[in-house]
Structure formats: structure tokens, C-alpha cells
């Protein structure tokens, strides 16, 4: 067994045994949920029900009930789509990229971050679906033989690339997540006393045995899936950015979009992970596993990606002037000083200025401040997509076509509704699923656990 430098801070606090880890995670599943859970679930499901109602209303009436018009034909719908997909990126980054980098701190947070990814991608996929107007025709995006002669989908189009990117991303993330869950479901199966629960978790655990060969295969599958999910996660948001970058709309027609979108996605995703985990660690008493050090590491990722996003904003601004293309220059002057100036400056404040506060160690290790910042970043990243989409469209080449976008109650209802559905799904996950990757956390206990590290250090001094 390898040992870890004493200078590295422990990732599991207090004195825990393998059995304690199992109990800390399985007990909340077996026992009655705390009142707080019912309160949150009540609020989330009411919002989810309202949002579902709005979506059904939209589908029955057509997308005319949104505030879209002939000039601004993409607005909150696609803003929300990109926002949700972006949030989804943190889960895969944590579980795949950090696995390849052998970052042990990922182990306490990857399970819930991956769950968040899956739910966020479901919310994201809702928007292009309902934006089609006739959702019952959505299978037309697939290359299926049809009655219109040999008319196939266009593989030259970024919109079709998106269909493949999002569906691959969703299904691969789901499989990656589930393969990690199988051994933990087996732990619950073998631990719980209630026969009904034993039966359900027995089915979910697929008869996992945990023998040596199974674990060898498990580790190989995790590694290979991480290896292929890493380029996948970068490709997904690159493809999302191609939806804009391959067009000729000023403000969209930019070659820096792929890396700019990917870092923005990771930035917003980590912010959402912070929002969720800071509440969850408190409510479910996971302070010993999701420590201040974990929060600090995530804040460091937020500074790095936030700074990349800031550089991208400034580069964009500079190039619009330096290119000498007046439409391009105008698009950016209009962003900063036009009728949507408030959206632009909200985005700049939330995404460029505020994350820089995390350079102060006091602030990035302060939980309340981190929670506040995570909300700010999520707001800022929503505005980023709104600025890119609406401000670029509302005034392009032809001044006679210039127009404003005014959201209707359906726009608002659908957006708020997806937040409700997302939280409902997440709360169900937190209640019934192992919220920590038990098998992974146990594997680092004797290397990164506080009491074991202390023993090793004392032993070393003698």
C-alpha cells in the first residue's frame, strides 16, 4: 500500500472505519427522512408540477406562447438549453478527468456530481425538444428511412451534431454512473434489514459479488470509460458552441467559442455542484467526507475556469475591434451599451470580477461565502448565454428588422419549472441512492483518512 505525504490534508476527517463509512451512508437511506427533506421536496415538486404544466400548455398551443419573434427566434429556450448542458459538464469532469489525474478528492463528490450531470442533461434536452414545436415529430432528427423519398438528415449541420453529442453524452454518463453504483447498491442490499428494501436494492445491484476478477474488470471499465468520456465532455460543449460559431451572425461567428464554452461549462457546473453539496453535506451530516478542503479544491477550479472565461470575453471584445468588421464591432458595442446593457454587465460582474475574490484563502474556505458565490456564478452564466443569444440576434445586419425580446409567463414558467424538476430528481437521488461512492471512499480511507495519516506520521517519527 502506498502512503501519502503528511503535508497533504486528510480527505476523510475523524476516526472512521470501513463499517462507519457504510453506516454513515446507508443509515439515512434506511431511516425516515429528516423534515427538511420533506419541506424541500414539497417546494421542488410544486415548482416541478407548475413547470410540467407550462410545458404541456406550450406543447398544446405551440411555441407562439413564448416571447419569440421573427428577429429573436432563439431566446430563453436555447439559453436554458446551453445553461443546463453547461452545468452538466462538472459531473463528467470530476468523475472522468479527475480520475485520469488520480485526484483522490474526487471520490467524495463524484457520485452526486454525476447525478447532477444526468439530471441537468435531461433538463437541457427538454429545451430543443419543446423548441421544435411539434415534439411528436422529434424522431425526425434520426437518420430513418422515410416516406419523403430518400431525404436523410444533414450530417453537415451542427444542429445534427448536437443530437449525436447530447444523446451520446447522456447515455454514456448514465452508464458510467450506474456501473459505479452497482457495488454500492450491493452494499446497501447486504446491509438493510427491511425485506422490501433488500429486494429493491438486490435488483438494482444486479447480483454484484465483489470477487477479485469483478473488481479488476470494474477498474478497467472505469479507467477506459474515463478515458473516452474525457474527450467526449470536451466535444459536447464544443459542438454546442458550433451551433453558434458556424453561423454568420455577428457575435456568434467566433473561432474561440469551443474552448470558451467548455471552460464556461465547467465553471458553471462546479458552481452548481457547490450549491448542491454545501446543502447536502449539512443536511446529511457528511462534513467528515465532503470537507472544507474539498470545497476549496472546487473553488480553485472555479477561479481557473472563471479566469479563462474572463480572458475569452476580453479577447472577443478586442478581436471585434481589431477585425475591422463593423457589424462585429457593433454587436459588441451594442452588448455593452445597447438596450441589453444590464445583461452584459451582470454577466461581466458575476463571471469575471466576483470569482477573483477566491484568490483570498479566507474567502475560498468560507462555506457561506462559497454558497453565495455559487449562486452568483450560476446567475452570471445564465446571463452569458442570454447575452450571446438574444443580444446578438436582436440587432444584426438589417436595422429595419431590429427588435426586442420580451419573455412571457410561459418562458418564465418553463425555465423555473426545469429548476423544480431538477431539484426533485436530485432530492430523490439524495434520499434513495448512495450519495458517496462507498467503494472508492473506502479505498482511500487508510491513505487519506485523518486518524490513519496521524498514526502514520507518529510511526514515522519514532
Amino acid at each position, binding site marked *: 500500500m502506498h502512503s501519502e505525504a503528511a503535508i497533504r490534508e486528510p480527505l476523510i476527517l475523524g476516526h472512521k472505519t470501513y463499517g462507519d463509512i457504510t453506516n454513515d451512508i446507508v443509515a439515512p437511506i434506511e431511516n425516515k427522512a429528516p423534515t427538511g427533506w420533506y419541506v424541500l421536496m414539497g417546494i421542488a415538486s410544486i415548482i416541478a408540477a407548475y413547470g410540467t404544466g407550462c410545458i404541456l400548455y406550450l406543447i398544446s398551443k405551440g411555441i407562439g406562447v413564448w416571447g419569440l419573434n421573427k428577429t429573436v427566434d432563439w431566446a430563453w429556450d436555447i439559453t436554458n438549453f446551453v445553461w443546463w448542458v453547461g452545468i452538466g459538464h462538472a459531473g463528467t469532469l470530476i468523475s472522468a478527468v479527475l480520475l485520469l489525474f488520480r485526484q483522490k478528492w474526487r471520490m467524495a463528490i463524484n457520485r452526486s456530481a454525476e447525478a447532477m450531470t444526468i439530471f441537468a442533461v435531461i433538463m437541457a434536452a427538454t429545451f430543443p425538444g419543446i423548441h421544435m414545436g411539434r415534439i411528436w415529430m422529434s424522431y425526425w432528427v434520426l437518420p430513418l428511412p422515410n416516406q419523403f423519398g430518400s431525404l436523410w438528415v444533414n450530417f453537415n449541420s451542427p444542429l445534427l451534431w448536437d443530437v449525436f453529442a447530447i444523446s451520446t453524452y447522456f*447515455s454514456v454518463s448514465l452508464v458510467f454512473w450506474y456501473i459505479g453504483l452497482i457495488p454500492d447498491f450491493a452494499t446497501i442490499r447486504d446491509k438493510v434489514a427491511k425485506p422490501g428494501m433488500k429486494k429493491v436494492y438486490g435488483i438494482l445491484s444486479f447480483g*454484484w459479488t465483489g470477487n477479485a476478477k469483478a473488481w479488476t474488470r470494474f477498474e478497467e471499465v472505469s479507467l477506459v470509460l474515463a478515458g473516452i468520456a474525457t*474527450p467526449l465532455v470536451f466535444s459536447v460543449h464544443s459542438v454546442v458552441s458550433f451551433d453558434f460559431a458556424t453561423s454568420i451572425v455577428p457575435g456568434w461567428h467566433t473561432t474561440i467559442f469551443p474552448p470558451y464554452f467548455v471552460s464556461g461549462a465547467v465553471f458553471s457546473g462546479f458552481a452548481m455542484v457547490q450549491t448542491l453539496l454545501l446543502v447536502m453535506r449539512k443536511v446529511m451530516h457528511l462534513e467528515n467526507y465532503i470537507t472544507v478542503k474539498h470545497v476549496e479544491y472546487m473553488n480553485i477550479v472555479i477561479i481557473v475556469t472563471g479566469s479563462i472565461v474572463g480572458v475569452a470575453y476580453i479577447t472577443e471584445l478586442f478581436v471585434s475591434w481589431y477585425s475591422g468588421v463593423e457589424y462585429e464591432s457593433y454587436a459588441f458595442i451594442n452588448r455593452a451599451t445597447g438596450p441589453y446593457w444590464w445583461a452584459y454587465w451582470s454577466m461581466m460582474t458575476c463571471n469575471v470580477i466576483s470569482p477573483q475574490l477566491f484568490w483570498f484563502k479566507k474567502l475560498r474556505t468560507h462555506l457561506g461565502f462559497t454558497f453565495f458565490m455559487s449562486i452568483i456564478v450560476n446567475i452570471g452564466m445564465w446571463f452569458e448565454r442570454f447575452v450571446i443569444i438574444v443580444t446578438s440576434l436582436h440587432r444584426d445586419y438589417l436595422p429595419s428588422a431590429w427588435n426586442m425580446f420580451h419573455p412571457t409567463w410561459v418562458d418564465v414558467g418553463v425555465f423555473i419549472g426545469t429548476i423544480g424538476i431538477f431539484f426533485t430528481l436530485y432530492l430523490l437521488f439524495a434520499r434513495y441512492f448512495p450519495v458517496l461512492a462507498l467503494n472508492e471512499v473506502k479505498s482511500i480511507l487508510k491513505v487519506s483518512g485523518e486518524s490513519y495519516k496521524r498514526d502514520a506520521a507518529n510511526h514515522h517519527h519514532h
Partner: protein
Amino acid sequence: MANKVIYAVYEDPEQLKDGARKLVSNGIKVKDVFSPFPVHGIDPIIGIKRTRLGIVSFMFGITGTCLALLGIWYFNIFDWPMNIGGKPSQALYKNLPAFIPVTFEFTVLCAAHGMAITYLIRNKTLPGMPARNPDPRSTDDKFIIEVRTAENHGHSAEAITGLLRETPVFEINERQY
């Protein structure tokens, strides 16, 4: 004499490895090891070969690449070449840059799902399968070595348990089968 299966239960993965080494160095075949998380370094001790799932994944991936290119060629080049904005789809190699994203995604899709399905089948872990670990504690905090007397004709059950007791074993259980 009835065949016996012996389960040596340990509380720590390093102790389990010591136990396995002890048995193997005395010429006893270890049937299997059950643990709540991967015990690194146990495979060479008990003679488990490296898995070939990585190769499986590669094969599925390359199949995905070929299928994607073949499909796209058929749909957009051969069967119905489109001419959008004066940019006709002429030949696969000329349009290839535009076909890379879907080809890549489809490669990943096939590699990931192909490997995942193979993994589940090879591990015999499928929906509805019953739990087959010998002791429910092996998914919690215990590390278990399984030895069968039927596979170790030269050694009596007593000799095997005697060797195990020389290691920091937590408990030893014997079952007839």
C-alpha cells in the same frame, strides 16, 4: 471425506494479501477473494490474468467509426447528396471535416456501451440476478478468501485453517458443499 469450502475473513486488505500469500506459497490454490473495494495487488498473488475489456472497447469503438462513416456516406453522399448554399456533398473525403463530430460521437457511443454490456455479461451482473457473495459483510468491511478442499487434494482442511491462523485472520468459517 466431504468437500469443504473455507472462508477466511480479514479486516484489512493488506492482511488479506498476507493470508493469500501464505496459502499460495504453501501450494494451496485460492479459489477467490471477495472485498468491498478493489484490493490492489491481489491479482498476481492468486493468479488472476489481466482483463481484456480494454481490447473489447477498442474493437467496439473501431466498429462504431466504420459504421458511422459508412452510414454518413450512404445517407449524404450516395443516396441523397444535398447541395446547401452552393456547397454540394460530393465525396466522403471532401466533406470529412463536417462528418468528424458525428463519427467521433458514434465511436464513443459504441465503445462505451459495447464495453459496458460486455462487462456486465462477463461479471454475470445483470438485472434480477441474485446476490452471490458468500457473506453479506464482504460488501461492507470484511475481506474474504475462499479456499476449496476439492481443489487442494494434498492438503486437509485442518492444515489449511492452521496456516490461516498464523496470519492476522479475523475469523474462519467452514461449510460443506
